[in-house]
C-alpha cells in the first residue's frame, strides 16, 4: 500500500511523479517565494519567506469562506500570487466534522454489519452517568447499505460479491441525492477485490472513498470510521481547495497534513481526512525546526489557548499515533500525537461538594469570558488569577485595546478565597497551581506514560497564554530549560514552510524474527519499497527512512522501530535488542515470547531548501519599559520583546511583554536571547 500525496486516483503514480518532478524543478530554479498560511478560528496567520527574509502578518479570519482572508493577506503583504509557493493549514475538514456539516454520505459495508459505525466499540462514554444524553447519530440506518459477499481472514473469497450489488448501490445513490460514498468491507486490507468492483460500478461525479485506500489496516470499525469521515468531508475540502486555486492562482498550492508533511491540493481533496490536524501539525513542524536551530532535539511542546491546551513530544521528530480521534470518532491514520485537554486561560475555578478547590473543565470562553473582561463573567478564571497576581501586567490590553478590570478579578477571588479560608491572592495562586497540575498531567501523558523522562527535554512554549505558566510547569516536571520561540503567535504558519514533501510506502508481511529467511526477506522487502519509491521519484534526490513494526507474537499492538545499521546475521539480534529496549521503555518489562515483524515502512523524502530564519541584530541598549508589582516577587521590570537584541540576558523576576502574550520569568530563571530571536530560559 502506498500513499504518495500527489494527485488523483485517476492518474497513475508514474504520471503523478512526473508532474511533481516538473513542479519541483521549476520551483528550485526560480527565485522562490514561500508563503505559509494558517487559518485559525480568530486570525489567519501568514509567514512569508523570500530573498528578503521572513515576514509575518495577521488578518481576521473569514469563517464563511476562509479564502477571502487569505486573499486579503496576500494583497496586504503586496505579494504576487502567481509567483507563490503556498503551503496552507486548513480547518475546513476539522470544522465540518466538529460542526457535523459534511456532505450526505452513503456508508457501504458487508451485509449484517450495517450498524458498524453506530455501535462503535459498544461502550458508554461516561461510566457513572445514569442519564446520559443520546447524541445525534453520525449516520442513520437508511444511509448504510449492506452488500452480500465476504472475504475471509486469509484474504480468500468466502462468499462471492452478489452480481446485483452494483445495481443495488446505483439505485440507492440515484434515489437519495448522495454526494459521497464510503465503502468498508471486511478484510479489504488483505484483498481489496470486492471494494474495487463496487467502486467500478459508480459514476465519476461521486466522491468515492475506499477503506483499503484510505487506511489499509485491520480493525473494521476504526478503518470504516476513518473512511466514512474521508467521504463526509472530502467534497467540501475539494471544493474549497479548487476555489482557492482558482481565485488566488498561486504557482503551487500545498496543504499540510496531520502527520506533519505537505501534500498537493489534489491529493488533499481525495484524502481529506488527513487534514484533521492540518494547523496544529504546522506548530509541531515549526517546533522541530526551532529545536534544530537551537540544538534542542528533545522537546515537549506546550500550546495553551483560552479553552484548551495542546501538548506533544518531539524526540528528534514529533511522536505519531494511529489512535487519534476527532469529535469522538477514531481517525486511525498515522498522525502527530497531539494530546489536548480542556484547560486554558478561560478555565473556571469552583469548589466541590467536599470543599476542595477545582479548576475547569468548564470554560468562560470568549463571552462572557474571564471576570476581568468586564463582559458579564462572574466566575474567576485562570486569566483572572494571572491578572490579580500581576503576571499579566495591569497595563495589558485585551486585543491591544481594551483595559482589563483588575478590581473585578480581586473581588471575585475575595469571595472565592473566603470559602477556602484564603485571601484573594492566595486563592488565585491555588487556582494557578491546580490548573498547572492539569497541564502537567497532560505533559506526563505524552512523556512519562510513553517512557520518557521530562527532565531530558526542553519545554517549548507557544500560543497566547503559555508564557505565564511555562516556567512553573517546567519546575513541576523537573525540567530546567524553556524555549519561547520567535513568532510564537504565528507558529503554525511558520511550520507550514518547513514541512517536507514525503511519500510513505509500506507492506505488511508477518515474519517470525527467529526464522532463518527473515533477514533476506526483510532486506528484499525494503529493496522493493525503495525501487518503488525511486520509480516514482524519477531522478529526484530521495532520502529514505526505514522502520518496521515489531511485536511479541500474540500482542495487539506493535512498536515501530528504526531499522538499526546492522547487516546480515547481526540484524535479528540487533532488532530483538532494539525492540526489547523499546518495550522495556514503554511498558517497563520484556517478555519471553517469540518476536515477529508485521509491517515494513519506508518514508521517501524529497530533499528541499531549508528554511533559514534571519539572525537578529545584536546592538543597542535595552531599557526597561516599566515596572509593576507581582504577588510574591515584589516589583519587577518589564521588557518589550521586540526590543531585545540577540545576546541579551537577564534574570528573573521579570515580565517580557508582546502585543498578544506575556512571558513570566520567575526568580531562579534567567533569559538569553538566541541569535535567531528565540528566548532561551534556563533554571539556575
Amino acid at each position, binding site marked *: 500500500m502506498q500513499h504518495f500525496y500527489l494527485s488523483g486516483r485517476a492518474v497513475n503514480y508514474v504520471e503523478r511523479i512526473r508532474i511533481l518532478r516538473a513542479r519541483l524543478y521549476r520551483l528550485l530554479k526560480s527565485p522562490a517565494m514561500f508563503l505559509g498560511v494558517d487559518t485559525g478560528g480568530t486570525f489567519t496567520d501568514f509567514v512569508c519567506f523570500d530573498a528578503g527574509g521572513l515576514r509575518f502578518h495577521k488578518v481576521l479570519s473569514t469563517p464563511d469562506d476562509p479564502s477571502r482572508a487569505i486573499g486579503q493577506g496576500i494583497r496586504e503583504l503586496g505579494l504576487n500570487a502567481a509567483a507563490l509557493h503556498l503551503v496552507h493549514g486548513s480547518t475546513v475538514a476539522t470544522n465540518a466534522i466538529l460542526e457535523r456539516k459534511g456532505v450526505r454520505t452513503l456508508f457501504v459495508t458487508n451485509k449484517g454489519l450495517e450498524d458498524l459505525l453506530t455501535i462503535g466499540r459498544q461502550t*458508554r462514554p461516561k461510566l457513572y452517568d445514569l*442519564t446520559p444524553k443520546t447524541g445525534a447519530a453520525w449516520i442513520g440506518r437508511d444511509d448504510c447499505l449492506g452488500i452480500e459477499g465476504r472475504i475471509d481472514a486469509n484474504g480468500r473469497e468466502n462468499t462471492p460479491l452478489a452480481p446485483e450489488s452494483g445495481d443495488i448501490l446505483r439505485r440507492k445513490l440515484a434515489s437519495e441525492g448522495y454526494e459521497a460514498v464510503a465503502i468498508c468491507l471486511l478484510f479489504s486490507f488483505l484483498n481489496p477485490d470486492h471494494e474495487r468492483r463496487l467502486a467500478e460500478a459508480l459514476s465519476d461525479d461521486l466522491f468515492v472513498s475506499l477503506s483499503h485506500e484510505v487506511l489499509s489496516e*485491520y480493525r473494521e470499525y476504526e478503518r470504516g470510521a476513518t473512511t466514512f469521515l474521508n467521504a463526509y468531508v472530502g467534497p467540501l475540502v475539494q471544493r474549497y481547495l479548487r476555489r482557492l486555486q482558482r481565485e488566488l492562482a498561486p504557482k503551487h498550492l500545498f496543504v499540510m497534513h496531520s502527520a506533519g508533511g505537505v501534500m498537493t491540493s489534489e491529493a488533499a481533496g481525495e484524502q481529506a481526512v488527513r487534514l484533521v490536524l492540518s494547523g496544529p501539525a504546522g506548530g509541531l513542524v515549526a517546533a522541530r525546526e526551532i529545536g534544530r536551530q537551537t540544538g534542542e532535539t528533545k522537546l515537549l511542546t506546550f500550546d495553551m489557548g483560552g479553552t484548551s491546551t495542546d501538548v506533544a513530544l518531539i524526540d528528534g521528530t514529533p511522536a505519531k499515533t494511529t489512535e487519534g480521534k476527532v469529535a469522538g470518532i477514531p481517525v486511525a491514520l498515522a498522525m502527530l500525537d497531539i494530546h489536548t485537554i480542556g484547560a486554558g486561560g478561560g478555565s473556571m475555578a469552583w469548589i466541590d461538594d467536599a470543599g*476542595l*478547590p477545582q479548576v475547569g473543565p468548564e470554560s468562560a470562553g470568549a463571552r462572557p469570558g474571564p471576570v476581568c473582561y468586564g463582559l458579564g463573567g462572574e466566575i474567576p478564571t485562570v486569566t483572572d488569577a494571572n491578572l490579580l497576581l500581576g503576571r499579566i501586567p495591569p497595563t495589558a490590553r485585551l486585543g491591544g485595546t481594551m483595559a482589563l478590570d483588575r478590581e473585578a478579578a480581586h473581588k471575585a477571588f475575595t469571595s472565592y478565597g473566603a470559602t477556602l479560608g484564603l485571601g484573594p491572592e492566595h486563592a488565585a495562586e491555588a487556582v494557578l497551581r*491546580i490548573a498547572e497540575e492539569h497541564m502537567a498531567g497532560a505533559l506526563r501523558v505524552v512523556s512519562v506514560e510513553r517512557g520518557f523522562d521530562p527532565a531530558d527535554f526542553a519545554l517549548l512554549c507557544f500560543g497566547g497564554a503559555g508564557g505565564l505558566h511555562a516556567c512553573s510547569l517546567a519546575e513541576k516536571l523537573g525540567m530546567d530549560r524553556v524555549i519561547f520561540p520567535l513568532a510564537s503567535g504565528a507558529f503554525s504558519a511558520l511550520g507550514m514552510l518547513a514541512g517536507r514533501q514525503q511519500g510513505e510506502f509500506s507492506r505488511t508481511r508477518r515474519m517470525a524474527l527467529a526464522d532463518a529467511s527473515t533477514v533476506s526477506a526483510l532486506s528484499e522487502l525494503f529493496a522493493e519499497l525503495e525501487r518503488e519509491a525511486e520509480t516514482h521519484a524519477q531522478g529526484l534526490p530521495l532520502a529514505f527512512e526505514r522502520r518496521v513494526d515489531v511485536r511479541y507474537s500474540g500482542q495487539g499492538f506493535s512498536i515501530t522501530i528504526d531499522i538499526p545499521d546492522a547487516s546480515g546475521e547481526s540484524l535479528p539480534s540487533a532488532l530483538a535488542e532494539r525492540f526489547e529496549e523499546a518495550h522495556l521503555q514503554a511498558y517497563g518489562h520484556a517478555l519471553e515470547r517469540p518476536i515477529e515483524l508485521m509491517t515494513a515502512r519506508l518514508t521517501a523524502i524529497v530533499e528541499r531548501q531549508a528554511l533559514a530564519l534571519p539572525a537578529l541584530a545584536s546592538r543597542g541598549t535595552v531599557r526597561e519599559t516599566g515596572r509593576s508589582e507581582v504577588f510574591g516577587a515584589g516589583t519587577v521590570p518589564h521588557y518589550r520583546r521586540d526590543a531585545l537584541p540577540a545576546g541579551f540576558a537577564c534574570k528573573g523576576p521579570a515580565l517580557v511583554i508582546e502585543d498578544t502574550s506575556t512571558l513570566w520569568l520567575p526568580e531562579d530563571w534567567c533569559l538569553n536571547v538566541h541569535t535567531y530571536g528565540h528566548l532561551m530560559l534556563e533554571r539556575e
Partner: protein
Amino acid sequence: MNPVELSLFAHRLAAICEEMGAVLKRSAISPNIRDREDFSCALFTAEGELIAQAAHIPVHLGSMAFAMKDVVGRFEWRDGDLVLFNDPFLGGTHLPDVTAVAPVFVEERLIAFAAARAHHADIGGASPGSMGVETRLEDEGLVISPRYWFAAGSEDPQIRALIFARVRVPEERMGDLSAQRAACRLGATRLAEFQADHLTNAFAALIEVSEGYGRSAIAGIPNGEYVFEDVLEDDGFGSGPLTIRCRLTVANETAIVDFTGTADQTPGPVNCPLAVTAAGVFYCFRCLMPAHTPQTAAIFKPIELRAPAGTLVNAGEGAAVAAGNVETSQRIVDVVLGALAQAIPDRIPAAAQGTMNNVIFGSDGDAWVYYETLAGGMGAHAHGDGLSAVQCHMTNTKNTSVEVLEMHYPLRIREYALRNGSGGVGKHRGGDGLVREWEALKSCHLSLLTERRTTAPYGLAGGAPGARGLNRLWRAGTWSELPAKGGVTLEPGDRIRIETPGGGGFGKR
C-alpha cells in the same frame, strides 16, 4: 493538609492509576485485556484501604474497595513482593478475575499497595473460559488464595507450574500476568516520587475529606424507607426465579441498604460473595456523586450494607460464583436503583438490559478460549431516551473487532447489528439491544451465562419494559432456542444468535 494540596494530590493519584492502566493494556497478550480492556488498576493505603482507582470497570472498583483489607493483613510484606489471588471469598470476585498486588515501600517504610485486576479468558475448570454452569467453586477453575508470585523479588516457580498444569493457553496467561506485574511496579515507582510522610499525611487527609462526597450525595435523597425487588430468572439448574430484595433507609447523610428477604444461595453459579454485592451497591451511589469524585473507599463510608449470610448476595465459601460478578451484580443494581427511583425519580433511569450476555467459545483440543460480553439497551429516564447498544452499569468493556475475532479464532460473524424496536416504549424510549450471530467453523464448546430471557427490564413511571433477550442455535436448517445459562457443543456450520435485551421505557406515552 490544606484543600489546595489535597486537590492536587487527588488528581495526581488518579493520573498514576490511569498510567498503570495504559501499561497493562499495551503489554497484555489476550484480546480480552488488550482490546476489550477488561481490567482495573488501583492504589491502596498500607492498611489496604482504597485511595485511588482509574475509571475502568465498576464491578472491579467496588469489590476491590471492599476486600483488599482482608488480603494485605495476611503477609509480612517486603520490597519486591508480588501477591496473586482470585479467591472470591478472600479478596476476589469470580475466578477469572485475577488480581496482582505489590507493596510500595518509600524510605524503607510500607506506605501503600498498587494493584491490577484483570479478567483472564481462562483460569481452568470444567468449561473453557471458566464460566460454565457448575455447582462448586473448585469446578469453576483454579482457586488462588492470596500467595506470592514474587517474594522479595524472586519468582516462586509454583505459580507458573500451577498455571501450566491447570489452565488453558498458559503462555497467554503468563504474558497477561507479566503485564499486570508491570502495572503494579509502575504504580510503586510513581508513588516513590513522593516523601513517605507526605504520602501518609495526604492519604489520611484524602480519606477524611472524601467521605464528604458520599455524605452530600446521600443528603440529596429525601429521608425515608424505599423497598424494591426483582428476580434473577434462574441459576442454570432449574432453581428460580430467585428474588433479590432491597430495603433502602435514608436518614440525613447516611443510608442503610438491607437485602433481607433475598433468596438463599443456590447450587448454580449466580451466587455473590459479599464483595460483589458491595460493588453493585457502591456503583449506584457513586453515580449520584459528581464526576470528579476521588475513588476512595471512604466515599462509601456513610453506606451500611446488610446482606444476610447464606443468601444469593452473601454466599458461603465454596459456592459457585462465576455469574455472580457478571449477572447477579446487574440485578443488584436494578433493585437498588429501583428503590432510589422512588426517592429521586428525576435522577434514576428505568432498568437497563440487566445482563452482560457472557459468551464463551473454546476448545480443549485446539487449546483456544474466547470470551466476550455483549452490550444492550440502557433505561430511559425523565430527561430522555436510553442509549442503544452500550455496556450498562457494572461493566464497560469494548467489543472485539470482527476482523480480530476472525483472524484469531475459527468463528465467523454473520451479523452484528442494532436490535431495532427492543427498547421499551414510553414518553422516553429505552435504548435498543443488539444482535450478534456467530458461525462455528470448527467444532467447539459454547458456554452462555445470560439473564433477562424470561423476565424483562422494568420500565418506570408508566413506561413499558424493554424486550427480553433471546439465545438461539441454528443447526441443520432450523432455529432452536437455547436456555439462558448452559453449554452446548457446536459443529462446523452451526450458528449462535444472541439478541440482547432493550432498556425499559420511562413515562406514559
